[in-house]
């Protein structure tokens, strides 16, 4: 995965970059399956490797080409990005160890989902239960985000009808 990202950063040909992006999403989905997040993996495979890549290709077809120029000064952005990374790495030092069953996320809130959701909602897939019921309002928001994007793209890309018609 890291290799594809490196290649993407260096690649000037936009088409290869897009294909690499699809590949990258696929790797990401594989890792997600390994982490037991099957729902997320399925979505990432469909959205990241599927929809995003198709959209990027479609847009690429319309705008075309390769990147024009080499970078002027790659150092400043690199320093900035690394500085942010250092802050994140610093914060991550204090996080609970991997697979620590006593970590707060496993002892607070989540247990109720795992233990009660069958009784309370009758749905064995806990992800679905949380998504659609416990945190159903987030999902409403998510649907509205999709709606906003769809309506926004219509507003931006619809061809203006000729007045004569």
């Amino acid at each position, binding site marked *: 995965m890291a290799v594809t990202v490196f290649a993407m950063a260096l690649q000037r040909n936009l088409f290869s970059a897009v294909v690499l992006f699809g590949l990258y999403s696929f790797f990401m989905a594989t890792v997600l399956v390994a982490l037991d997040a099957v729902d997320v993996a399925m979505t990432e495979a469909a959205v990241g490797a599927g929809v995003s890549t198709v959209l990027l290709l479609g847009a690429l077809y319309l705008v075309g080409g390769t990147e024009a120029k080499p970078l002027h000064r790659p150092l400043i952005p690199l320093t900035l990005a690394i500085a942010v990374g250092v802050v994140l790495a610093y914060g991550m030092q204090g996080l609970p160890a991997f697979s620590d069953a006593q970590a707060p996320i496993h002892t607070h809130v989540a247990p109720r989902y795992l233990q009660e959701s069958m009784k309370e909602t009758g749905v064995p897939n806990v992800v679905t239960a949380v998504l659609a019921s416990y945190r159903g309002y987030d999902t409403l928001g998510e649907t509205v985000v999709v*709606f*906003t994007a769809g309506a926004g793209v219509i507003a931006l890309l*619809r061809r203006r009808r000729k007045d004569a018609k």
Partner: protein
Amino acid sequence: MGDHLAVLQVVLPLAAAPLIVLVRDRGFAWIATTVVSYACLAIAVGLAVRVATAGPISYEIGSWPPPWGIEYRVDALSAFVLVLVALTASLVAPYARRSIAAEVAHDRAYLMYAMYCLCLAGLLGITITGDAFNIFVFLEISSLAMYVLIALGRNRKALVAAYQYMLMGTVGATFYVIGVGLLYLMTGTLNLVDLAARLREVEDLRPVLAALAFITVGIGLKLALFPLHQWLPNAYAYAPSMATAFIAATATKVSVYVLLRFYFTVFDPSLHFGDVPWREVFIALSVAGMLVASLVALFESDVKRLFAYSSVAQIGYITLGIGLDSQASLTGSITHLMNHGVTKGAIFVLLGGVALRAGAMSMSVNSLAGLGQRMPLSAFGLVIAGLSLIGIPGTAGFVSKWYLIVAALEQGHWWLVAAILAASLIAAAYVWRLIEVAYLRPAAADAWQRGEAPVGMLTAALAMVALCVYFGFDTTFSVGGAQEAAQLLRGTR
């Protein structure tokens, strides 16, 4: 229905948007938007009254108790911001009709209204929710809607402005999610109240500090905290007038609200921040923003950009109050949210009217020549709002700045008082530049036709101007509400 006010506040505009897309008619879209905006104002006032009499309201969506479900929570601070957003919306919506008809292609006007409703719903949703991740979802709703609103501007630069805003806004939102993620990993909860309680027991502070940094930078990008403001001037300048008026009055204010929430409700500065000089950072950035942005505004030739830079400077005043961190300074900050919202709203609505008559999207300062004769009421409104921007006694702007000065004096920061006064003087200079052009310089021979702005627009604008003056004299609502909110923030320590 009375018990459901909290959720109706957000769901009404949220449901109006798809309805508008379904019906696909410009007239219906306008009516729906107006009705929804007024309903939102009524609900917001209703909520504010309830909170004032009966204390904070908690509403469990889906009847799941927090922290398992998502909770809507209205307290003095969120009620105050809700009223600000809904008030602006209800003043901008009726005026939108003429402005949108003139500036946006007819076959997408209905989409513009839908986006406006979504943006409103998003901003209200951010303010009212008691769940950290829900904030992100609604932040994205309002942001995506805003990008589209800006991109619908007639000038092609609007597209680039929207694109830039989209990049910076999305980075901001992603940083926010990273920050919330770190907090979640340390506490296991997303509910803000629960988060605050459980954060007190966290021992390893490194993730908390990193979360603080990410949330500050992330939200700082959204609220155009100096020097993260680069997206703002172009976005304000090239968006359609109605979008500018609404966004300028509300969007950055809601981001300030999120920042206040996290700094004072979720985090406990004395416990979590340790030796981090967050106050000094805020004060330094605020003062730099106030002075630099004011100076840029002074030499800016485009009117909308001028006032956009002035917004960056005014945000500096608001964050200054956060940095000073006292009862008086927070009161000043929160009052300034309202006062500056109303003032900027008035200015951009008036400029929208002028742009409509001038038939141009971007106007140079010089093109306002002779405005005093041609559009006397609009010019008069601009002057009053400009005075409020400077902070002349008797206007709203004075009141909030007064509290900031008092706060600075309390802590013995004489140089801060000097900085506030200096920034106000620069503001006086750029407002005077406009007045001079508008009243003292004769109109160019080939200037646009005579005539005031349409009645609807003018009424909305003058109502806002009247509010600028009203909040300068009667401060029961503005300062009173802000004081209560400030107490709430500091009391939770």
